[in-house]
């Protein structure tokens, strides 16, 4: 089945790319663990947006929504577990600096 992609695709793609770039920058340019988590969240938002936009353009909204629900569930679990890791790390090292993780034994 071939689907003709309308011009709106490029509009949605541009905003997805901007959000994705923002999230990547937020993750890479900071050393604070909570900010890295915020960067991951922004990346997830961009993916959620693009999944729904693709579903809308392809006329498969129900399938896109089902996938987005899965993404949101995974997002919550990822955030909660990383938040636990951050708190555990802070209790051990008294710091939120990502560079301090290099000194850990693993």
């Amino acid at each position, binding site marked *: 089945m071939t689907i003709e992609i309308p011009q709106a695709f490029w509009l949605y793609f541009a905003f997805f790319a901007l959000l994705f770039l923002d999230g990547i920058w937020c993750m890479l340019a900071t050393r604070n663990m909570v900010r890295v988590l915020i960067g991951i969240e922004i990346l997830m938002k961009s993916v959620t*947006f693009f999944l729904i936009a693709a579903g809308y353009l392809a006329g498969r909204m*129900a399938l896109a929504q089902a996938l987005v629900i899965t993404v949101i569930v995974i997002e919550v679990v990822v955030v909660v577990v990383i938040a636990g890791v951050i*708190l555990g790390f802070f209790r051990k090292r008294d710091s939120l600096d990502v560079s301090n993780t290099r000194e850990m034994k693993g």
Partner: protein
Amino acid sequence: MIWFTVLLVLLVLAALWASMASALLRATLALALTSALLAVVLFAFGATLAAVLELSVCAGLITVVLVSVTSLTQPRSLKEQAADRKRRLRRFWPLPFVLIAAGVGLSFVKAPVDIILRLPAGDGDVRTVLWSLRQLDLFGQILILLAGVFGVLVLFRKEAK
């Protein structure tokens, strides 16, 4: 279409604020605003169930988790905060310009796209799709939730004396 584009611009601006805000609480609130705006975008697309979940879970629950993490970690001294602000400014000042340049560059891209999609037949109700087509996803979601609960229990386990 114009109001929708304005909504998308606001979404990107809120995300930019979340990544550039100097205080963690402000960044968390900006992230909640991003989630709320994304929920409005999802409503505009007609994805009501996903929008409700985005609003309640991402703008609500995740914000609570992030605020809790911020409040449970110790505040830094004023000197450290000032030094960190300078460092952050040095790392983040190109971001708005990069985003504007990328936005302008992407607005010129109008290449034809020919994608062949093999999607399952029919696109009924989202509940039908979830329960009949994507059962494995539901199973995976339950496993991930259990793994998350187990992970948090392990992380907060008290060490044996």
